[in-house]
């Protein structure tokens, strides 16, 4: 059998079952505007918009062209049992102003892809049932203690008792939320979360190799899921509420207040280092907590933060734990199915997603390629507001397809 036949057949099949929202998803993953994609195809942006909305159906040749331009398999565009995207809430992104719409769309598309993969795997495996406490907080509420009460509610409903939380990512997973790392190319977007038809999702930033800060991020996102399922994302007050939630969840006031230093002399730094290890939070979070709870004066806090800066600890604080918390749900599912003889390749085929994205979504740790260069790239990305395609790994597959098309046309 010629290797070209299946591709051509698939393309024709997909044209019949073409799903507009899947095209939107692929375009977002590639970090393209409608006009960018139109230019790549040499078609009008109106045509792209019509395919995406379902007003028009692309021809088989166009589907092939789309697949090629976006570096996905044509099967990616096939209709799904349900449209995950339409059933998800808008994610909460921190620093909305510095994150471009394109980057946000891409990040959200990645999150949806994770839900899509989870949904596909869930036909074979059972994950813990979602059990997310819910305590909505008005988006303009600066005064009340609702964020703190929400943190108490979580500790109570999840039966956490007193003391530090051992493993935040696992805690969230055990209560049915999906936790994944985002790909290194998207590292300029901070951690984010959203609720989907399936289960809540937390997407962690892959370049923060800091156990203590990552825990705070996860707690912050948990706060959004508990308090802001209905809220418009992105406001300053909403972000503050999530930070207050995280601080109270990780360092409950009544348990930590008397332990915090009241001056920065004597044993203060040693105390902070101890508290850091015991509670699994950064010294900076502890200092902020100490000021918030009125234990530390503004002047002492400022001086302490100056010391932190001088020692270069703003970027990298010393700490004993140098392994970050890792998600387990999807990786465990893949391992379990592999033990049962269901290969990863088969799962990827069933999910119909690019293999590299499948790996990123289902891995326990951020990709190895998350290096200094990625950190730099993320910083550059922030400056230039340039969004790198998440589908670039597929270049070789795309050129195979191109040769298929060459013979077809």
């Amino acid at each position: 059998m010629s290797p070209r036949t299946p591709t051509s057949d698939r393309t024709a099949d997909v044209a019949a079952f073409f799903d507009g929202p899947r095209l939107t998803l692929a375009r977002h993953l590639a970090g393209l505007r409608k006009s960018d994609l139109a230019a790549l195809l040499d078609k009008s942006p109106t045509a792209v918009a019509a395919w995406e909305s379902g007003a028009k159906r692309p021809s088989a040749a166009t589907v092939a062209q789309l697949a090629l331009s976006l570096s996905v398999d044509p099967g990616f565009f096939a209709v799904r049992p349900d449209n995950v995207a339409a059933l998800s809430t808008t994610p909460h992104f921190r620093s909305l102003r510095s994150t471009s719409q394109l980057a946000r769309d891409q990040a959200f598309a990645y999150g949806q892809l994770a839900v899509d993969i989870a949904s596909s795997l869930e036909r074979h495996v059972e994950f813990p049932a979602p059990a997310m406490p819910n305590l909505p907080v008005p988006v303009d509420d600066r005064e009340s203690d609702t964020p703190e009460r929400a943190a108490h509610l979580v500790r109570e409903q999840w039966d956490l008792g007193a003391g530090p939380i051992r493993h935040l990512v696992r805690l969230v997973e055990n209560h049915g939320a999906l936790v994944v790392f985002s790909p290194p190319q998207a590292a300029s977007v901070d951690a984010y979360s959203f609720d989907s038809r399936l289960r809540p999702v937390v997407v962690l930033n892959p370049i923060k190799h800091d156990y203590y800060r990552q825990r705070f991020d996860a707690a912050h996102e948990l706060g959004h899921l508990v308090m802001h399922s209905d809220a418009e994302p992105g406001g300053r007050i909403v972000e503050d509420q999530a930070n207050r939630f995280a601080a109270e969840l990780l360092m409950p006031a009544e348990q930590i207040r008397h332990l915090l230093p009241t001056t920065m002399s004597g044993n203060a730094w040693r105390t902070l280092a101890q508290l850091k290890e015991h509670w699994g939070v950064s010294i900076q979070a502890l200092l902020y907590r100490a000021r918030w709870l009125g234990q530390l004066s503004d002047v002492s806090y400022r001086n302490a933060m100056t010391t932190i800066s001088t020692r270069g600890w703003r970027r990298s604080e010393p700490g004993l734990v140098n392994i970050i918390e890792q998600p387990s749900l999807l990786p465990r599912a893949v391992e379990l199915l592999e033990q049962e003889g269901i290969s990863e390749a088969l799962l990827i085929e069933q999910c119909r997603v690019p293999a590299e994205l499948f790996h990123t979504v289902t891995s326990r740790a951020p990709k190895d390629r998350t290096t200094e260069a990625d950190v730099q790239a993320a910083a550059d990305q922030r400056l230039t507001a340039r969004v790198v395609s998440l589908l670039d790994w597929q270049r070789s597959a795309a050129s195979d397809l191109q040769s298929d098309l060459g013979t077809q046309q």
Partner: protein
Amino acid sequence: MSEQQEVIAEFGEAGVLAGIRWAYDSATTRSLDTYSPTDGHDAAWLGMTRFTLLRDRLDRVFACERFAVRSGNDTDDIDLLYADLSERDVESIPALDAGLVRRSNLNGSPGWAYQQWRFLLASCVFGKVAELPWPQKSATKQKVAGQRNPEPPQPSLFEGLALDEIGGLEGMVQADEDLDLPTLVVAHSLDPLSQKGELVIGRARLNSGGGQAWDWRHDLLSIPPTAGGRVMGDAPLPTGPESVPDAPVRLRRPAAELRDGHANGEQ
């Protein structure tokens, strides 16, 4: 877990790193206090004083040699322990159990051992700790630097040889290079002008003909200084995220069914 992670975690948890840090702080502060160029002191004087004081402080904080606890009761020996220490030193000395770290010299070079690791001291010029020239140091230090790295970063030269051959070669190499205990080096420096110093612990690497001076090293001055008592108090340390089990994931139906489902074209 890499050797570095293991050493730092174990030494850190037990308070050994804090002990070394305290000894260094105490020794360098006292050396600088006493150092007087106008009185004829020179760099050699300062280096020798620092070495002597550092050895003394390590023995104190780890209750070795002169400071070994003889009465069976830590507090009875406290006068000797505190003799001639500054008030700040007394306040900040970590209270470690006697016997935690034992004296373990190597060919007359003062050394201390905790669990299966020994560490020796090496001084160097300020700013040069990263490129310590081991071939110019004593034979003992050279031997320490020549130890086999338990986790060579690159494939071994013998890769591709039959397994038993490798075993034999390794045995030979080990017999020649391995010491009775894996031995680390605590390297320290001090600049009398700026009063800045360096303090690292790591696995030295024999850099004959240039190259890296360390397989790994850990900066001990980057941890917050202790101010007395056990480093971590009685608070339990985080066990590390890797000891927490995965979230429960169960198969829904037998694997055969899964494969059949796919074969039937189920999507």
